[in-house]
């Protein structure tokens, strides 16, 4: 595989993000539009790094309440418990549902953390115009996009349980405020991943080859 090569951007060409048509990105005034589908076209996603950082920092801030606050309250005749995400995983493990406990642990703890760290790494490497392992970094970005949605798992579980377990005085489940923060983290990291432009990873390589 060749690491360098001519990028469309360096030729003043631009591929439409919607339909993929390659056209000339010539517009000094206003915005250029794709000749086939009329979508706005940009050589690179506008302001990609700044927007991605902003969303990522917001996600980092909400990551704490998402993990520290109660996500689910369970009450029954015999006991009452408040669960954070982690204590829910531990409870599942203790009651012998190891497989499910492992799935929830991966989806709710590992995946959000992986997304935050991976996006930070990508942003820092792009900022420093690193030429280090572009293939692996592109693969990392693909992983972030692929696994991101699975963190919604806990939100769905809380939704189903809160609706179903409503048998007066015998057993009730309520969603806790941690669910709001957790949902926000998932949405923010998904938007952050969408704002990031993986072509930025390859730009330093293209520029080097031109020199």
């Amino acid at each position, binding site marked *: 595989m060749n690491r360098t090569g001519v990028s469309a951007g360096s030729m003043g060409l631009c591929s439409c993000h919607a339909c993929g048509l*390659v056209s000339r990105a010539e517009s000094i005034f206003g915005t250029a539009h794709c000749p086939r*589908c009329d979508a706005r076209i940009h050589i690179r996603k506008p302001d990609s790094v700044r927007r991605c950082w902003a969303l990522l920092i917001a996600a980092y801030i909400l990551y704490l309440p998402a993990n520290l606050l109660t996500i689910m309250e369970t009450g029954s005749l015999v006991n009452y418990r408040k669960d954070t995400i982690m204590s829910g995983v531990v409870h599942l493990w203790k009651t012998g549902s190891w497989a499910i406990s492992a799935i929830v642990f991966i989806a709710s703890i590992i995946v959000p953390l992986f997304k935050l760290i991976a996006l930070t790494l990508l942003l820092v490497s792009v900022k420093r115009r690193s030429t280090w392992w572009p293939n692996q970094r592109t693969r990392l970005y693909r992983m972030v996009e692929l696994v991101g949605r699975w963190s919604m798992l806990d939100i*769905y579980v809380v*939704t189903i349980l809160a609706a179903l*377990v*409503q048998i007066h005085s015998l*057993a009730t489940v309520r969603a806790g405020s941690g669910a709001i923060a957790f949902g926000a983290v998932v*949405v923010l990291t998904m938007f952050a991943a969408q704002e990031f432009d993986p072509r930025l990873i390859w730009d330093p390589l293209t520029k080097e080859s031109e020199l």
Partner: protein
Amino acid sequence: MNIHPKPLIACRECDLLQREIPLSPGETSCCSRCGATLYRCSPDSLDRTLALVLAASLLFIIANVYPILSIEIQGDRNATNLYGAVSALWDQDMRSVSFLVFVTTILVPAIELSMMIFILLPLRQQRVPAGIPLLLRILQSIKPWGMVEVFMLGILVSLVKLTDSSSVIPGVALWSFGGLTLMLAAVATSFNPRDVWAHIKTDNAQGAVK
């Protein structure tokens, strides 16, 4: 003007400029630098996709009407369907979370399926309905927010969580969600937006680069 070179294509992930190569059915072309999928050749993909989309729509309706799970504790029963779950969360003052669940499990899949029918049905009769570019663009941008498969896993996790405290009865919607997950995965593999774009003429030829 019959001998013009194959059109240019730029990789979505690394922006490498390449020329398209002809493919035989079932083949996929990948970027020579980063390995991303550039395009696929799948003949009849539109017909197959339409069939899958119609089946998925039927399952989607069933999955939304019937209860997903019902539980029984000491003779008291309770059941919920998807909309019931969303509105229960809304009533518990979890409006943002309820909205998020509504969008990702009901609204986006419903829009996706109806838009695909609206695009694919006329194309079958060799008609290109107006506004297809806009529809395809919307389809592409809402795609990451349809999360039926994650919800399906959520149902299974809930099922396991409930079994040790009560008796759980799987509802009709549970099976429909399972089927819907498979159908949507099949739609995603078979739908090739490139085939639809091929039906759309380029407005001003000078903008497109040959």
